[in-house]
């Protein structure tokens, strides 16, 4: 059985929404299922559209999956500014260590 942890999305206006996330799902899928606006995910998690960009400033070091070279490349050309904390949320798997992690939604995805 997959367990559930809490994930927090910070919207463009600063408002934070707490949602239940299933472990094993991606952060992108968690946003979509919970109707969080601002994660477009056009390619459905294939790491090829860069419309699921998030900033992870408020996530503890070392708890996120490693970034693949492809994700790294895609992020260079994401619609909103790339920052050191930028990630593609479809490439981050939810695990117990992500409980109460905060993901900030960028200005634009297209």
């Amino acid at each position: 059985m997959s367990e559930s942890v809490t994930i927090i999305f910070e919207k463009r206006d600063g408002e934070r929404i707490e949602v239940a996330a299933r472990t094993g799902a991606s952060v992108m899928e968690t946003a979509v299922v919970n109707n969080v606006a601002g994660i477009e995910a056009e390619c459905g998690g294939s790491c090829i559209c860069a419309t699921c960009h998030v900033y992870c400033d408020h996530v503890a070091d070392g708890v996120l999956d490693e970034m693949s070279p492809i994700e790294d490349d895609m992020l260079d050309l994401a619609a909103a500014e790339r920052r050191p904390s930028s990630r593609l949320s479809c490439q981050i798997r939810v695990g117990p260590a992500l409980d109460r992690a905060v993901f900030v939604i960028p200005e634009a995805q297209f």
Partner: protein
Amino acid sequence: MGAAVIVGASHAGVQAALSLRQSGWQDEIVLFSAETDHPYHRPPLSKAFLAGEKDAGQILLRSPDLYRDQQIDLRLGEPVEAIDRAGRFVTSKSGRQPYSTLLLATGSRARRLAAPGADLDGVFTLRSLRDSRAIKDALAAAGSVVIVGGGFIGLEVASTSAKLGRKTTVLEALPTLLSRALPPAVGDFLRSYHEGKGVRFRFGAQVAGFEGEGGRLRAVRLADGSTIAADMALVGIGGEADLDLAKDLGLRLSAGGIEVDAHGRTSAEGIYAMGDVAGFQNAFAPASMRLESVQNAVDQAKAAAAHICGGDAGLTAVPWFWTDQYDLKVQMAGIGRPGAVEILRGDPSTGAFTLLQLVDGRLIAAHSVNRAADHMMARRLIAERVPIDVAAAADAATPLAKAVLAEATTSRMATAGP
């Protein structure tokens, strides 16, 4: 105004509904779906979903709540049965639904093989979540699998089948792989990659029929008389536009789809079409064509919704497409064509390369394998139609952004480069 009625709730129809709301559509939006599943991403059906890496809950297009929040009346399992163009209403099982604007997003369906035995248990086509569920079950039980057609969907299923350890044979009628969609260098690369994973190919193979026992598939018979044992066969020989409703409307057709302009307008006032069902002369394509891709469905839907709400931008996006096979990310930007000048960036034997295609010194298409940065930059360079520095473009170590001839370098290009 009156209702906007959308027929088909997949990548195109769902995007059209959401974009209509975003563009300020005030009236009713009714979104009819022939399927009973909540709208989902179709690409994973031959990839992550089929491989068991994702379940149905992980491939939803949008949260079911979003339709309610946006006041989109999603009618699952309610196909539109008829359209009355003069009376401006559609008919479904719940009766008549009037419209002021009609959006046709009925997509495409898998072409079937007209061969004896094609209706045996164990012979599949793949288009819907339902199909994918059935194929997944069959794959789990199969020893040997035959894929009819070496197109994208066939090769994706072949890679899943090979990963699961099934004896996998791909039958291709033509002498080479994906020769209509890809330059030979890319098709040949994919072929040897698959062969390295144990997939067998039979080129120039014509299926004569499927042989069964007690209604179940046992073998695939070829025109040359040979047979290949199979517990499961997937027929992946391409798609055709779903024109069941459109054909009685007297709409002009193009490239096997409903003809539309850059705003998604059909030849009939108040009727739009988008996605796989639409035939369109894209600004970056050599001729009118039906583009079967998520990007095209989404961008055409956005352009149509904008126009319906009074905008005038029109579709300008460069077409792009991807396919995932094993650990390969194959990405295509633009529409390739035979006779273009080809430049190879990188060495295919390393598993990462890009094949660029140029016409008149300008980039028209890029096919990348595991080189996402090239793909993303190619989309921009194709859109901007800038002249390319061939020597720099051929050097895989030079970022593609730097392969623009100096005099053409605009401030935008200069800032886009890493």
